[in-house]
């Protein structure tokens, strides 16, 4: 290779191209190293730490086991009833604050669990805890609408109340004239 020829005017266009490729390549490699996270590619084509972050989300929904720790009597009531498939939270809400207060009371006897009257939850809003004998709670599942399968026990409200001879048809607690939410069978 004739070094003089390499750097002569004849080869200027080639040198420009080679220079651009080298500089462009080096620049691209640098940008790549800054933009691609270091753990990319360890478990697959994604940032490996993202998987652990997703798995680390806290569990919000409480299972019945949490409630039954204190409310064992309800658990026994429901053991034989068809409502044992219904979760506590369906009728009473998730109750995060109540459970937090109860856990705190377990550790230190001084802390007080707020009484039921202070819960401000409501079935329609789905907030926290509430005791409800409101017919809307029952009807959310048991109201017969277009689409309800035949295999499920659902009612047309006015017909059912008439058949069963309910006293206060307009009352929000009319279901409780005959049924108990925990063991609704008659």
């Amino acid at each position: 290779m004739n070094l003089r020829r390499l750097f002569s005017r004849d080869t200027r266009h080639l040198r420009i191209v080679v220079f651009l490729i080298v500089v462009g390549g080096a620049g691209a490699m640098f940008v790549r190293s800054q933009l691609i996270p270091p753990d990319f590619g360890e478990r697959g084509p994604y940032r490996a730490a993202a998987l652990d972050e997703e798995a680390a989300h806290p569990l919000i929904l409480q299972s019945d086991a949490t409630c039954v720790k204190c409310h064992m009597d309800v658990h026994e009531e429901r053991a034989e009833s068809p409502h044992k498939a219904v979760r506590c939270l369906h009728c009473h809400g998730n109750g995060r604050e109540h459970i937090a207060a109860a856990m705190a009371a377990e550790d230190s006897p001084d802390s007080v669990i707020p009484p039921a009257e202070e819960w401000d939850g409501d079935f329609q809003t789905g907030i926290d805890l509430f005791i409800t004998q409101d017919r809307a709670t029952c009807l959310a599942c048991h109201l017969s609408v277009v689409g309800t399968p035949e295999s499920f026990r659902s009612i047309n409200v006015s017909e059912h109340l008439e058949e069963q001879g309910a006293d206060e048809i307009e009352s929000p607690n009319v279901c409780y004239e005959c049924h108990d939410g925990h063991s609704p069978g008659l």
Partner: protein
Amino acid sequence: MTFELNILGNGEGSCCSSDAGSGQCETSGSCGCSDQLDEDSRRSFLRKATTTTIGAFSLSVLPMAPDAGEQAQKEINGHSSGGAKGASPNEDVLYGFLVDTSKCIGAGKCLTACREENNVPEGYARTWVERFVHFKDGTVQVDLVPETGFTEEDASLIDREQVDRAYFVPKLCNQCEEAPCNQVCPVHASYTSPEGVELVDGDRCIGCAYCVQACPYGVRFMNPDTGNADKCTWCYHRITRDEKPACVEACPVDARVFGRLDDPNSEISRRLSAVPTSVLKEHLGTHPKLFYIGNSEEVI
């Protein structure tokens, strides 16, 4: 003697003769023709340049192996944090989901459970339940189950006399084997976990919403609070701790079933082999892992 092409027209073959002519070419640098010496050096240059280029290109496509020490450290971290945060990802596990539309009563318990568990913003949903109403005149109406279930006012909205049949269809992310959402993501924010669950890396997502367009089932949405793409993850944080997804936990009639497809004795595997099941939009070739029992062909 070969034919000389003299472009500059400065005499015939003047620089192509062996003595004074080649010297002239050397100094002036351009004659418009070449002699044998130049041909040889040009050929040898091309040969060397080609070899170098091919060699360099081959080196550049070698996989970049991370530093071995770094990798060992990360593995140790992965195992120790796995115990604290939850089960570490497992490649042998394959999750599946089964929905029995004949059992769904449209209670909407799954919807509130999902919203609470995953902090889904109002107006968006990671899962929803559709109601298909087939009227006797052949039309089909599709509407949504309200989140707190139907109220007494809703019951009388549709004239039962006109209805041929109706049923509820819960919908959520299908966690496709060949997920279009992952293919189109420009930054690899949308990815598949080792268990086959499609997830979104909130840190990498740039909010372009290409994946939202790409999903044929419409399960993805742009979360207004985080600015990232969001979707049902089959409650990945629950299933990796041997819990069930929130919607499965909440369903009072067991219309939703979750389990491991790799375990032939799991409930879902046994039910899938017992009755015919279908998937949504099978013709698109996405191979969903969400199976339906009881879907009629109108459900898309």
